């Protein structure tokens, strides 16, 4: 089998790392992008030991909008082409703070939407020219309906979702089987991001479970994948609840 070449944006997230391990076992060449070079080096060593053929590190603030395209091209040159681009990074932010202080709102929108959209567009441009490859973007079920508790984060993820959907449509018109884009929407995942919440119960998934779904999604399936699948139905119901009733809840 040929060596897959992967770029992981936001490689220090628990879900990203669990996914990277699946690629490592396959012997992939993996570029890890994120802010903290020490943490990235720790992960890179682990992936190599687990079987990754090569690992490289792109230490940068992914929310930094300048030079995204050049950075992306650098990775592509480094890996000698690219097969899968996976975008994991994002911040939950503080909704109440975002309502008080617009700079907090802007931070959430810049990280979760604007910069993520630019990385996605840079990847799409390259994959389309190459005629093959997969763009996998991790969104959130929070983007499916605006809720008072986290709608700034939700709006950013919803916007990102529409963007990826558009890229998927654009790719589909190329009629190349090996070219596609997919949005993965995880529900509750036991990661450091959710450490403030009470965990446990049937709705909570581990990063490893979600990673397996993401890996499969990268190999090609529908343009929108819920992780695990049952969230599709939960969110269908949540979207269908009429506003007068929905507005009585504290969701």
């Amino acid at each position, binding site marked *: 089998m040929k060596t897959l070449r992967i770029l992981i944006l936001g490689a*220090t997230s*628990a879900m990203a790392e669990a996914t990277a391990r699946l690629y490592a076992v396959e012997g992939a060449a993996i570029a890890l992008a994120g802010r903290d070079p*020490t*943490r990235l080096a*720790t*992960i890179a*060593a*682990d992936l190599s*030991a*687990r*079987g990754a053929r090569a690992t490289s590190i792109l230490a940068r603030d992914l929310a930094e909008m300048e030079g995204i395209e050049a950075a992306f091209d650098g990775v592509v040159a480094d890996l000698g082409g690219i097969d899968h681009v996976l975008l994991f990074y994002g911040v939950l932010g503080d909704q109440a703070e975002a309502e008080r202080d617009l700079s907090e709102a802007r931070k959430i929108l810049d990280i979760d939407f604007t910069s993520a959209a630019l990385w996605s567009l840079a990847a799409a441009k390259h994959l389309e020219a190459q005629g093959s490859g997969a763009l996998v973007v991790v969104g959130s079920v929070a983007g499916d309906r605006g809720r008072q508790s986290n709608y700034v984060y939700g709006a950013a993820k919803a916007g990102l979702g529409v963007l990826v959907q558009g890229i998927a449509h654009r790719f589909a018109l190329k009629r190349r089987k090996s070219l596609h884009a997919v949005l993965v929407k995880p529900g509750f995942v036991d990661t*450091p991001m959710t*450490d403030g919440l009470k965990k*446990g119960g049937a709705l909570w998934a581990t990063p490893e479970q979600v990673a397996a779904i993401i890996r499969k999604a990268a190999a090609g399936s529908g343009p929108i994948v819920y992780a695990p699948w049952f969230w599709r139905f939960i969110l269908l119901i949540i979207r269908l609840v009429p506003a007068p009733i929905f507005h009585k809840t504290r969701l």
Partner: protein
Amino acid sequence: MSGFISTDRRQSWGRVTRPTQKVAKPHFPDEVPPLVGEAVRGSTPLLAVGLMRSYGDSNLNPGGAVVDMTALDRIHAFDPRSGVLRADAGLSLDALIRTTLPHRLFPAVVPGTRFVTLGGAVGNDVHGKNHHRSGSFGNHVRKLGLRRSDGSLHELGPDDSTGLFAATIGGLGLTGLVEWVELELTRIDGSSIDGETVPFHSLEEFFALSDESIASHEFTVSWIDCTRVEGTAMRGLFSRGNWSRDPARLPHPAKPKAGIPIEFPSFALNPLSLRLFNDLYFRLGRWRAGRSLTHYAPFFFPLDSIMNWNRLYGRPGMYQYQCVVPPTDSLPVIAELLQTIAASGEGSFLAVLKTFGDRASPGMLSFPREGTTLALDFRNRGTETLALMARLDEIVLAAGGRLYPAKDGRMSARLFQNGYPRLAEFTPHVDPHFSSAFWRRVAP
């Protein structure tokens, strides 16, 4: 970064108590020193824990702070040629084997479950079915990184002259937090065990089989039916094996899917069902007896295919009792222990008997020593169960034996102090900010 969160959701494998403690789960090594610092500033006793496969209270710190090491599970370096692997202490043997098996390398010593961390394996200096050949886990540790509460990080190996290495191997997490472990793996040809099961009908027969197998077999262990014992007459299955020379490399088993979804009602386990189970187990074993090639997983880790089997014991949980008695009087002492258990009407699903060899463990508090070890589990029926174990304690004490802290949730300070003659040498190495429920009970 996540700090400590107060919770009562964590239990040890025996599930007898459910204490409230502050728990933190760092995901990166750089988060560890600040967590240690936070506990020290708050004068909160600290303890690192792994996958919580110890049965009693040595991995619990009621009212204190616990650092869950399981998200620190990265491999630092693995060299298939030298067979040396260095990894974070939170790496499980399950994940380790997944990585090393394709290179025909395996941990030199594994306990009866692969869901233990490197840190936990060091903390209890675990033993396996090959103790008579390979000693304990600590015999194969080349180096480890120990974080003390004063913030210092010590790189320790068997050549350490301060005693801190020997105190940390089998040191029950009391000497500090083990951040990483460097391990020497053992080379194998394939992934099967060339095994054999021999039924026996008395303790004399067990010891004869044991003696005879030491030279011929790397792995030995026996199951006995502790519900039917008369004098030294009893039924058992002696199993022994060697790594097969067959180069076939079978895959690592998948994560267990079948599990015990709920706590069993307490009445499900009673003397009658135990007798029936033991009877069936023996008959099945006798029927299957003889030589066979088995995958290593069912051979080493028979219970791992059933997730959460500890829930079989219901809400009250269970105790495990494991002792080792010196070789000189092994036979009469084991016979007396078994008679006492049989007379009580209590029994155990899995009573396990094995002889330890004379290879010295590196740790000051390591459990394995030359002699015979007996391990059983008892459902928790409160005072009656405690009284039975207290009777067993007296027999172990009189014989000059010791209990295994990994399996204990109630032994007296007297029994512990008598069983571990190097305790006085150990205590100066205890980190002043580290403690556990177990240690607060048995410390001198």
